[in-house]
C-alpha cells in the first residue's frame, strides 16, 4: 500500500450554518487542493443542510497560540476588571444605563 500513501494535505473545514452566523470549525479532511476540499467538505460535513457556506484552510497554514502559555497570554485581560461594565457602581435611582 505504501506506493500510494495519502500525501494529500490536511484541510480544516469551517461551516456557516445559517445566514448571519459566523463560520465555525467542524473538523478536517484530506484533499489535493482547495476546490476538492470544498467539494469533499460538502459531502463529509453537510449531508443534512448543515450549512450555507464552507471555508477550507490548509491546516499547515493555521498559527495557534501555545496552550502552555495560556496563563500569561490571557491573564492581562483577566486582571483588567475595569474593562467590564460591572466594575462601575451606578446609583440604583439612575435608570437606563
Amino acid at each position, binding site marked *: *500500500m505504501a506506493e500510494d500513501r*495519502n*500525501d494529500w494535505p490536511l484541510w480544516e473545514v469551517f461551516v456557516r450554518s445559517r445566514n448571519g452566523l459566523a463560520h465555525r470549525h467542524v*473538523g478536517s*479532511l484530506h484533499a489535493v487542493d482547495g476546490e*476538492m476540499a470544498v467539494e469533499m467538505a460538502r459531502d463529509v*460535513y453537510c*449531508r443534512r443542510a448543515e450549512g450555507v457556506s464552507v471555508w477550507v484552510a490548509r491546516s499547515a497554514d493555521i498559527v*495557534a497560540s501555545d*496552550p502552555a502559555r495560556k496563563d500569561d497570554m490571557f491573564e492581562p485581560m483577566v486582571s483588567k476588571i475595569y474593562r467590564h461594565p460591572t466594575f462601575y457602581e451606578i446609583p440604583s435611582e439612575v435608570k437606563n444605563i
Partner: protein
Amino acid sequence: MYTQGLDQRPADGATKAGDDPAALAAFQARVDREEKIEPNDWMPQGYRRTLVRQISQHAHSEIVGMLPEGNWITRAPSLRRKMILLAKVQDEGGHGLYLYSAAETLGVPRAEMVDQLLAGKAKYSSIFNYPTLTWADIGAIGWLVDGAAIMNQVPLCRCSYGPYARAMIRICREESFHQRQGYELMLKLAQGTSEQKRMAQDALDRWWWPSLMMFGPSDRESIHSSQNMAWKIKRVSNDELRQKFVDATVPQGHYLGLTFPDPELRFDEASGHWTHGPIDWSEFNRILAGDGPCNRERMAARRKAHADGAWVREAAAAFAAKRARRQRAEAAE
C-alpha cells in the same frame, strides 16, 4: 457505529516512563474539573496512545461497517428503501472520516491508520464479521446494531478529549435515523406475509447475541477500564451499557411480535431489568482474533476498494500539481 470492547489489552498506564508526576497530577485535575483536553495540550503518553487506538478502531469500524449493508444496496426492494440505505451507508463513511480526523489531531497521519487496517494489524468491531444473508438483516442491523452503537456512543459525547467528543456529537445526531429506519423495516416485515415475518424472526435470531457482544467483555473480565474511567475516556461500564440496551430493546422486539433467541430472558420485577442468559464469549474472541464468518471477506473487500481507488488518487494529485504549476506560471507573467 461504534467503539469499545475491542481492546482487551490493559490500558496504557498513567505512570509509564517519560511523564512527569506533577504534570500527570495537573492533567488529572483538569480532567476531574471536566475540562476538555485539546490537541495541543499536554497529555500523558498513555492517554494519547489509548485514544489513538480507540478512535482509530472506531473509525475502522465505521468504514468496514459499510460493507455488510452495502451488500444490499443494489437489491433493496424499492426505490424508497434503496435511497434510505444509500444515505445510511454514506453516513457511516462520513462517521469514519470524522473519526479519522479526530485521531489525526493526536499526531497520527491517516495514511498510517489506513495502512494498519489494510495490513490486518488494526481491530474493528466484531459485529461486521457476520454475513447479511437476507433483506431482513438490513432491518436488524439498523434496529439492533445501530441501537447498540447509540447506547455506546452517547456517553462518548462527554469524553474528555475535545475532538473525539465533538465527533461523537455529530455522529449521535445522525444515528437516530439509522436505528429508526431499521426498526421500521422490521415492523413492515413483521406485519407482512408469514414468509416476511419468518425472515424478520430469523434475522433477530442471528443478530441478537452478536449485538450484545458489541458492548465488550463483562466488567468482571475487563481489566483496562479503570484508567479509562479515571481519564473520562470511558464513562459507563460495558455491563451497564449492555443492560440499558437490553431493557430498551426487548419491549421493542415484543411489539414486533418476535421472540428473542434466549430461553433465559425474563423480566426481573425486583430490579426492574430484563435479565439475559450467558453470552458465548468464545465466539467473540474467535472473531476478534480474525476467525469470524466474514473476517477474510471484509478485509479482502477493503483492500480491493483501496487498490481500485489508486488511479483516482494518482490522477487527482497529478491534476492538482499541473494546476499549481499553471497558476505559478501565470503569476510569474
